[in-house]
């Protein structure tokens, strides 16, 4: 629905506009901002799809040769006669622009195509694998928040020593490469201590280590951002007021300062959700978890264009949705935004 249409409907359904100009303006701005958001979301997704399509199509090397060679485990040139049926089937010989519009047309009707390698619809390929990745992503995000809130509420602006050790650890955690952390966790807790299964699978027991692998570095990032805000919050007049009212230190920290200081963390979480989604492949391969990350890597390796595009579009959607959620969360946490 375009902005213009929206305006017309508003006008029609509300003939008595003069009497309620204020509300109308509100609805109007609300709808307009929703429209702009939707448009920009579609723009982001279109750009992601186009970019992926072009990269995949323009990379050197012949796609039909690739498919045929992978089917046969051979690395060689192919004759035109061998390639003809494949080119015919996937339309690789059509002009790129034709292929592109066909791709966009399919996309617009929700058809992500069929995997070149698995011969299955991309929707099905993604559907089969998305659940474990979503579980992993959200668990990692929760773990990251839990770690950083406990550490910050517990240490910020308390004892100088603890505070600086904790903030040092945050910097360290933020810098930990996930592939290294993952292998260490695997070797120590799964192989040597035997506390977790080595082959994670989709069970609860197999979730914690991969989630920690992704969550610990993220906790470091979040912690660094929130700590600064939290420390300055502790010196704000509202914190002083709360104390003067006789509120205990923990109460002040949890009820006033924390709420004030998590806003930058929330912003970061929107980004983190998308980033966790793409980092999931590391945890997935170390802990042998099924999931989209692994599918994506395989698809990129074999240039399975429909699957790569499908997943990239999905990740773009997730970024967009995550950012919308962040905005909603903002208004919930910060009452000032409701009235403005």
């Amino acid at each position, binding site marked *: 629905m375009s902005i213009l249409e929206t305006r017309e409907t508003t006008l029609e359904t509300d003939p008595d506009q003069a009497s309620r100009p204020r509300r109308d303006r509100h609805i109007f701005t609300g709808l307009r901002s929703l429209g702009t958001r939707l448009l920009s979301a579609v723009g982001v997704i279109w750009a992601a799809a186009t970019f992926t399509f072009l990269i995949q199509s323009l990379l050197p090397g012949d796609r039909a040769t690739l498919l045929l060679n992978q089917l046969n485990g051979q690395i060689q040139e192919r004759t035109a006669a061998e390639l003809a049926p494949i080119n015919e089937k996937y339309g690789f010989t059509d002009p790129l622009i034709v292929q592109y519009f066909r791709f966009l047309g399919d996309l617009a009707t929700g058809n992500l195509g069929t995997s070149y*390698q698995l011969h299955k619809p991309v929707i099905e390929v993604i559907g089969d694998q998305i659940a474990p990745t979503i579980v992993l992503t959200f668990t990692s995000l929760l773990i990251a928040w839990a770690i950083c809130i406990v550490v910050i509420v517990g240490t910020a602006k308390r004892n100088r020593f603890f505070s600086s050790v904790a903030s040092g650890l945050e910097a360290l955690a933020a810098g930990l490469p996930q592939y290294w952390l993952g292998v260490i966790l695997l070797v120590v807790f799964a192989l040597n201590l035997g506390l977790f299964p080595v082959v994670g699978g989709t069970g609860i027991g197999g979730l914690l280590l991969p989630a920690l692998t992704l969550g610990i570095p993220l906790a470091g990032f979040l912690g660094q951002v929130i700590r600064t805000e939290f420390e300055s919050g502790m010196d704000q007049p509202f914190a002083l007021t709360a104390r003067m009212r006789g509120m205990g230190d923990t109460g002040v920290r949890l009820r006033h300062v924390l709420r004030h200081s998590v806003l930058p963390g929330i912003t970061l979480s929107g980004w983190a959700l998308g980033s966790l989604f793409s980092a999931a492949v590391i945890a997935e391969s170390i802990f*042998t978890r099924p999931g989209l990350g692994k599918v994506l890597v395989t698809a990129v390796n074999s240039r399975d264009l429909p699957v790569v595009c499908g997943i990239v579009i999905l990740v773009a959607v997730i970024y967009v949705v995550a950012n919308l959620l962040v905005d909603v969360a903002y208004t919930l946490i910060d009452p000032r935004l409701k009235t403005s």
Partner: protein
Amino acid sequence: MKNRQPAYQPTSRSKAVKAGAVASAAALSLLLAACGGQTTSAEAGTGEKVDGGTIRYAHLQEPACVYGGWIQQAFLSRQVLDSLVSQTEDGSIVAWLAEKWKVSEDQLTWTFTLKPGLEFTDGTPLDAQAVSDNFEFWQGGGNGTVQAHIGDYYSSSRAIDATTLEVKLSEPFAPFLSALSQGYFGIQSPTALESRSEAENCESPIGSGPFTVGEWKRGQSITFNRNDAYNSAPQNAKHQGPAYVDSVVWSFIQDNTSRFGSLASGESDAIGEVPTVDFDTAKAQFDVQQFLTPGRPVTLSLNTVEGPFTDVKVRQAFAYSADRKAVVDSAFLGVVPFEGNGTVSSSTPGYNPDVAADYPFDVEKANVLLDEAGWTERSAEGTRTKDGKELEIKIVFGLNSIVTAEGATALQNLQEQVKATGFKVTLVPATQAELFSGQFSTPDSYDAQLGYWTSPHAGILYINFRQNTEKKPNPANTTFYNNAKIEDVILKANSAKTTAEANKLYGEAQQLLSDEAVAVGLYTQTSSVASNPKVKDIWLEASQGEPVFHDAYFTE
């Protein structure tokens, strides 16, 4: 199945924690080895055979389909498909779906007698017509590797009666039976091939084998369920009739540490591709089998039509320039053997062992040859030059798809060693997509390429060295080397009357190719399996080294 104890018990907590704290990525395997070494292996049971159970097997690579022309697919399809014949370790051929066979005097007509009364798991009769349909399916593009093996020789096939199949060849082909023994030649239900979708035939081909394809959880595992009606095991199997175990869960664990760890922690009963760093530990605690894959070894194919390697003296000098055995031994910790023969690997019937020692490490000879070839000047870095051009060698290799990390290390060792004689080697690790899309298949794209090609017979020489002509291109000839005389010897070998005669001629062809130094051997392609001692009788079949679970069983 029940009450099986893990073969590996973790060491005491404090030690493990301490060890974990100091562990770095490089030390991990050592750490594992150290921990493993102190544990006892599987507790001694009564050793009595248990019926049923599920074997949990962990493998490295997960292909897109169960059936296809890639060795990774043969690993899977071997579990569900039977072939006409089977090859044994000594290279002889024994009965499988075909009970017996004979060949006509002119060697052009093969008559196979099939075991009577066989059925595919979808109920379609496995008769001569079904096998003939499979030949047609392969030839029609169903399997490019089948075509590479027999395409130039196969002419037609027909069912004479339900159990008698006649295959006509256009020329005598001595390795015919050997070729048929490979997983690519697994016989599928023609009904399934015709009536089912491409996706179904990709994910769960229908055969007559010991197992059927159950659920495939992509990225995780495939379950193979026992075919209770199985009655067509090859003669070299350890028993006839259905498999002992109920099912095999074939999981895909790419990470070496995790894969070996899953065996050590008891989460897997057997693993494939035992990591080289864990090989000794594995041998101490588990049953380890290693198979040297026949065919072309992992070899450097030198580009004989463009660049410095067009000169045979430069090719020979390159072969002399490195202690290739040391290069391989240090990279693979002695687990994978060096192969000096660049065209055929040591486990292939018809292998010529003399060729392997043709080019020992000899810097002096290399220098003389390079001087003779006119690469007389040296640049400031010590690289030889000719007419102002550096002696630069671009080696392309498919990292992680064709060549393992150890293989890449071997190449780095080689790169360092050949510096002394004045070669400047540039290593180009190619991604899977780059490699398979043909970017590095043309003469202008590399000076040398590292790769292997499995084959249970020395007829691989025909695949790799048949002349590449405009009329009849041979893209599998990665050296681009055309030599009518050598091709003639190979053709004679292919059409020899007896295997002995064929092997003699194959040996001759290997010598001729070695004299020309068109391919410089590095190491043998291998496959391996390590299994918990409580699981008995997993074996690696001899055509390509696929693990066979039909005879495997658990013990108390």
